């Protein structure tokens, strides 16, 4: 099987990797680029643990081929903090104890960041529907929703 050379931008950095055309973007991020923050829960688009932004659009990286990333911008959970400074979402998740095992957390952080970028002041219902494709088996969701709402408020300068 001949591999395809792919050039893309991941979290602002230019990257290159060789992809088997059957490899998903998720496989390439984890196995070729060592970015293991993005998780695989189901591999079939149901759980959202693999959420990344592709050219600014929230997608499941398990439903995108690595070769489709050619020339595109990919943003993963590793791009959220700047150095040691956590993103407001990350801080609020810790403050609200919005995680237990943490497996769903990277995907939810990436999805929530995409929501707040396009809707800085979402209602609780909007947050719940936006995150309907991000499954969490531990928290019961309430703390996640509160953390996202609180991070939104802080980012708007409302508290």
């Amino acid at each position, binding site marked *: 099987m001949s591999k*395809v050379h792919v050039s893309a931008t991941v979290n602002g950095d230019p990257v290159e990797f060789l992809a088997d*055309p059957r490899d998903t973007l998720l496989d390439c991020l984890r196995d070729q680029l060592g970015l293991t923050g993005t998780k695989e829960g189901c591999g079939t688009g149901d759980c*959202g643990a693999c959420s990344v932004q592709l050219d600014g659009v929230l997608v499941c990286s*398990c439903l995108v*081929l690595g070769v*489709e990333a050619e020339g595109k911008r990919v943003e993963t959970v590793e791009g959220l903090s700047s150095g040691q400074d956590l993103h407001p979402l990350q801080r609020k998740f810790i403050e609200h104890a919005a995680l237990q095992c943490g497996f769903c957390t990277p995907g939810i952080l990436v999805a929530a960041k995409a929501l707040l970028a396009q809707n800085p002041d979402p209602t609780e219902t909007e947050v719940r*529907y936006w*995150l309907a494709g991000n499954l969490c088996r531990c928290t019961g969701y309430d703390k996640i929703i509160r953390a996202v709402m609180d991070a939104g408020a802080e980012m708007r300068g409302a508290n």
Partner: protein
Amino acid sequence: MRFHTPKTFENAVAIAAAASGQTRFLAGGTDVLVQLRAAMVLPDDLIDLKHIPGVKEITRTSDGGWRIGIAVSGAELGRHAGIGADYPGVVEGMQLVGSTQVQGRATLVGNLCNGSPAADSVPAMVAAGAWVSVIGPQGVRDVKVEDIPAGPGRTTLKAGELITGITLPPRGANAGDAYLRFIPRTEMDIAVVGVAVNLRLDGDRISEARVALGAVAPKILLVPAAAQAIIGTMLDDAALDDAALDALAAAAIAASTPISDKRGTAEFRKDIVGVLVKRAARIALDRAKGATK
């Protein structure tokens, strides 16, 4: 698996026509990648259509309809004010597909060509009278959306043929459409029953209607008998009377030949199709009278 990124539809057809093994086209990939992972479909040639110019565009046709590119995602369709105003039923059907993440990728054409009898965007496209443009080794042709599905997972497209665009006819005055589905939860599930109604009013009388049903037969059904049950009906106090609604439900139930599976029994599906078709007709009627919800 060979991965192709043709820059023209003609080139995509040439690649597909020259391929000897399994071929798949790639739009949003939300069905193709799931089938790939499950080893249900392992294409020898995968042809990504997203590099062809214009596939992400939505344009007005010269007669006032809409032409939707084959790579327009559900999220992009949902943001388009013009189609949302003309065909809210088509938009709400597509927007029911999957999560935010799936909406960022999934397309109308992929939903249609995957061939699921429960595909959520297809009944409303059928009810709207939409058609697709097809290109293949033998040239181009237009096909009504209801003539594409052939049965679960199958279409009537011939080897090497692909769809180049979807067209919704001009909306015209006093018309409305709606799509409703039943699922046991509020998000992220497959339709147990799906119903689309599209109708037009002439004064107080229903002058045109099309009714399409999903998940109650091996393929999505256009049911002319259901439409006939309400065409010509005079509104009573601006609403459909019970006799017309009952006739509509009876025709939809009579056309349904559902299976029993873990999502619902055949009896349950028949019951629900009657309930939903009445509700969808009421919503379509309100929209035809100018309601924007």
